[in-house]
């Protein structure tokens, strides 16, 4: 089963609005990462939040992490048409030979001009 599950699967908003995507996971994590993917090709790393952090900012991006609820959210403020992409969370869990990075199935964000 998926470690990280994004919600919603698809989101459509108007330019200038904020977009919020959520990620839920099942087991304890070392860190959680968010990636962006355009056109079904390579992913671009956006931000990494460690398990002992609760919030992190990078430009128009804000990521929160609630380890008690095993969830994270990615907020994109003042969205632009160029933000249209798929967004994936990836959970780094386990240790030693059992450590793995598991990607969710993504949220497809469409920002309408």
């Amino acid at each position, binding site marked *: 089963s*998926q470690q990280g599950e994004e919600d919603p699967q698809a989101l459509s908003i108007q330019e200038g609005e904020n977009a919020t995507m959520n990620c839920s996971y099942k087991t304890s994590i*070392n*860190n959680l*990462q968010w*990636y962006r993917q355009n056109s*079904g*090709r*390579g*992913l*671009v*790393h956006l931000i*990494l939040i460690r398990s002992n952090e609760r919030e992190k900012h990078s430009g128009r991006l804000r990521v929160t992490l609630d380890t008690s609820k095993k969830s994270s959210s990615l907020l994109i403020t003042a969205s632009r048409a160029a933000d249209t992409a798929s967004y*994936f969370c*990836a959970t*780094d869990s386990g240790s030693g*030979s059992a*450590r*793995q*990075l*598991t*990607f*969710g*199935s*993504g949220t497809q964000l469409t920002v309408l001009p």
Partner: protein
Amino acid sequence: GAGVSQSPSNKVTEKGKDVELRCDPISGHTALYWYRQSLGQGLEFLIYFQGNSAPDKSGLPSDRFSAERTGGSVSTLTIQRTQQEDSAVYLCASSLGSYRAHTFGSGTRLTVV
């Protein structure tokens, strides 16, 4: 190089043929990963190389899949006797250390006809 380079970018092959996909990671990145992404889906982990350690092959879907990493740098993913269900985008990523932020290549789109 400046980024992760994958070749070819597109590959169309006949069912039953063998294919080789190449990944050239960022110089100095000790960790290298292969993932597979089917249309509209998340990433499926295939294999992970870390330095000189034995690779984590736990994600390889069948014994038709194999991968090598020569000299701690370039990696080749080989799929023998390709099947139509092997059609997907194959993504390579590298990172400075285990499960740190990944830098992805643009992927190889494999189509088995």
